[in-house]
């Protein structure tokens, strides 16, 4: 061994260090009580979960070596792997699974995700039986690493509030990496866990996540090879720039689970937008193809309905609202919005989510000129920061707003919230702030949530998507063009539906970088 050059030795042993550059600062590392990608990225390395998913949305064993859904859909039995241990050496048992599921149910912001869980039985240390009050097909996806980290009961079960538990910053999990160091505002370091229960994994010795707040500095660092991976790049010019660098591979795979959509939302309770014809007219006057192909340089995928492209539940056969100015004018005439002497039918405001100019502000500005052609005057209202925008939109103080909302894999987790009448909740952002209400939609979503037959479930969601697209509480524009950049020489790239918010235990250096 000693005689081999360093490069070759590193290759044979696997190993090496990967440096990830990210603008996302985690609040803490416990994904059981905090959603969002800033926490999910480290949490899925530190904590293992019952299942994981491949790129075809198929569940794979992880902490659970097998799982069985009862024929009545009212319970799921998990058999845990034998040799999983936490980073402190204690074995992972069904007690930990039961504790974690109940903790997530009580504390995770996605209330619908585990609402159906009544209790978790633990007949023996390696068997957990999840008892449900009604069938809950979304549960399998909810068992993904990003959504169901298994916490050690002996650490978190000490009676302290889990949301502010000190262990959230010094986490103990059973995942492939353990947290070695967190330097607030600078970086955190994840180290290979030697006793990880999958033999030969993880392949890397160390992952350093550098927190680089400025996207320009991040791009320069990637081009210089100082960071080896940049996840969640959305800027069209940044993507373009990275694609041109010959040392970097750029991929848009690994985001299907998040299902992030950019859309134009309407306040359906405010005149004249309470008239479906006005909303349809706006959809006909806005050219989705132009936005996607020109404004976003073809980097983004068009989205035509509430379920994100890439999901097996997406219904493509919906009303597309291809650009049609004549039709838009006709609909506005029918809705009684007659042009005044200056050709203006109405004056409305449009807001946008601050932070992503290419996805949000530019589209809002485009809408202003696009709608002028049909006699609608749009005033773009810029908000200086997220809280200001959220305050307006969540209090229904808006006409139109651009927005970016995530599907989170299953409609029950991330889609229903936008359309259910019961989720019209003033003051809460990303609830049904459109105030859209249709009893038929409520009924279908209710049925689909508990439908155990995959075919019937798909049919119900198809119907739902067609109705929502016809009634346009939201005009769907595009999937957020998330891309991951990786240095050449890396193998085992994360291309599953959860991408980098799933364990990076297969990622490795084929050709390690020169240091």
């Amino acid at each position: 061994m000693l005689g081999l050059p360093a490069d070759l030795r590193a290759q044979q042993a696997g190993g090496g260090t990967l440096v990830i550059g990210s603008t996302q600062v985690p609040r803490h590392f416990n994904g059981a009580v905090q959603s969002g990608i800033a926490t999910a990225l480290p949490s899925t390395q530190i904590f293992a979960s019952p299942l994981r998913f491949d790129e075809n949305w198929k569940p794979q064993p992880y902490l659970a070596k097998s799982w069985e859904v009862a024929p009545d859909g009212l319970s799921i039995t998990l058999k845990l792997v034998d040799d999983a241990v936490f980073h402190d050496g204690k074995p992972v048992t069904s007690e930990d699974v039961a504790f974690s599921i109940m903790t997530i149910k009580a504390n995770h912001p996605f209330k619908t995700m585990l609402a159906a869980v009544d209790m978790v039985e633990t007949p023996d240390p390696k068997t957990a039986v999840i008892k449900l009050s009604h069938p809950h097909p979304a549960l399998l996806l909810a068992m993904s690493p990003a959504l169901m980290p298994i916490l050690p009961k002996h650490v978190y079960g000490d009676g302290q509030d889990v949301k502010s538990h000190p262990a959230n910053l010094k986490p103990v999990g059973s995942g492939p990496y353990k947290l070695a160091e967190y330097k607030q505002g600078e970086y955190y370091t994840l180290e290979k866990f030697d006793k990880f229960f999958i033999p030969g994994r993880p392949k890397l010795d160390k992952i350093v996540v550098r927190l680089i707040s400025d996207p320009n500095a991040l791009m320069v660092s990637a081009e210089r090879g100082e960071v080896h991976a940049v996840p969640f790049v959305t800027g069209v010019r940044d993507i373009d720039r990275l694609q041109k660098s010959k040392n970097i591979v750029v991929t848009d795979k690994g985001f299907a689970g998040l299902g992030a959509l950019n859309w134009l939302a309407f306040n359906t309770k405010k005149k004249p937008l309470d008239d479906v014809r006005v909303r349809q007219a706006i959809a006909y006057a806005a050219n989705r193809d132009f936005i996607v192909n020109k404004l976003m340089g073809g980097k983004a995928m068009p989205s035509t309905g509430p379920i994100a492209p890439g999901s097996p539940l997406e219904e493509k056969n919906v009303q597309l609202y291809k650009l049609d100015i004549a039709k838009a004018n006709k609909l506005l005439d029918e809705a009684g919005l007659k042009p005044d002497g200056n050709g203006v039918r109405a004056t409305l405001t449009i807001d946008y989510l601050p932070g992503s100019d290419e996805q949000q502000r530019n589209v809002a500005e485009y809408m202003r000129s696009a709608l002028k052609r049909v006699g609608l005057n749009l005033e773009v209202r810029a908000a200086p920061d997220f809280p200001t925008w959220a305050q307006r939109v969540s209090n229904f103080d808006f006409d139109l707003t651009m927005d970016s909302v995530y599907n989170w894999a299953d409609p029950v987790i991330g889609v229903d919230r936008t359309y259910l009448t019961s989720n019209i909740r003033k003051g809460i952002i990303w609830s049904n702030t459109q105030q859209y209400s249709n009893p038929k939609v409520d009924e279908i979503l209710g049925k689909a949530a508990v439908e155990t037959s995959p075919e019937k479930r798909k049919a119900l969601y198809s119907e739902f998507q067609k109705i929502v697209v016809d009634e346009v509480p939201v005009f769907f524009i595009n999937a957020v063009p998330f891309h991951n950049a990786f240095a050449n020489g890396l193998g085992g790239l994360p291309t599953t539906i959860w991408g980098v918010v799933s364990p990076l235990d297969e990622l490795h250096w084929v050709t390690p970088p020169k240091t």
Partner: protein
Amino acid sequence: MTLLTHLFGKLANAAALLLAVLVLNFCLIHLAPGDPVQVIAGEMGGASAEVIADLRAKYGLDDSLLQQLFTYLGKVAHGDFGYSYYFNQPVLGLIGQRLPASLYLALSSLLTAVVIGTLLGVVSARRPNGLLSHVVTVLSLTGYAAPIFWTGLMLLLLFGSVWPVLPVSGMADVVNPKTGFAYVRDVATHLVLPSLTLALVFIAQYSRLARVNMIDVLSADYVRTARAKGLPERVVIFKHALRNALIPIVTVVGLQFGNLFAGAVLVETVFSWPGMGRLVFDSILRRDYPTLMAVLFFSAVMVIAANIITDLVYRLVDPRIRAGAR
């Protein structure tokens, strides 16, 4: 008035001022639209009404504003600056982690600006209508007029991309951490770009100030006398003239301390420098009230301290002030 009673009076003033700062900060921050709970809910991807209500109660945000203010002042009186909603840590700990980085940045850029600025000013004052003088004037005006983040970005592209010789982000090499002297050198290398960016704005001001004052002083009688005595030009300029020309510069250094912090917010964000400026930026975006109020409070403490120190230095540089002649 002895120096001690003078200092005591200054400190009493400072205490009153800091109380006013606390109250004013509280009011201004709470006037901004949106609240931290909405941000937390937002980052959670949308939370339920129950979660929101729980969070509001937990952070005492459902109390009246006046009550929140008194609770806050009471806590601060006991040295408790609260718990960061966003970073899930006690605020004092957060500031403790960030403060050294900020001080490195502020002091190094201040030093750079004062030294280079003064030298440029002195050099250009010797021939006020010479070519060098005009070049310095134009350059300093450009440095002063350019937005700080733009200067930062240009330096970042120049030294990060076009001619990649300097690190562009962070405070130290985190992949191969250094120790001892190598660590000091590592941090110093990382400091060059942010420190230079911040210094450029101030170099301009100091060089203009030094130039004007030197021109003024160089035409004074005592300088003519010194020259007439046949003293070497170096001694005339640096010993006789500069000492008097420095007084306004010292004053400005003290006054500029606050501007330095404002500039640091932008510089730290561009170069991912882990100081208080970035903490402020992150806390504003997240309406992290406790962190924001504490950072602003400690910035005020530093600005006031800088002013008191300036006042003392002023007395040392100019004996006339010490003697009480006003």
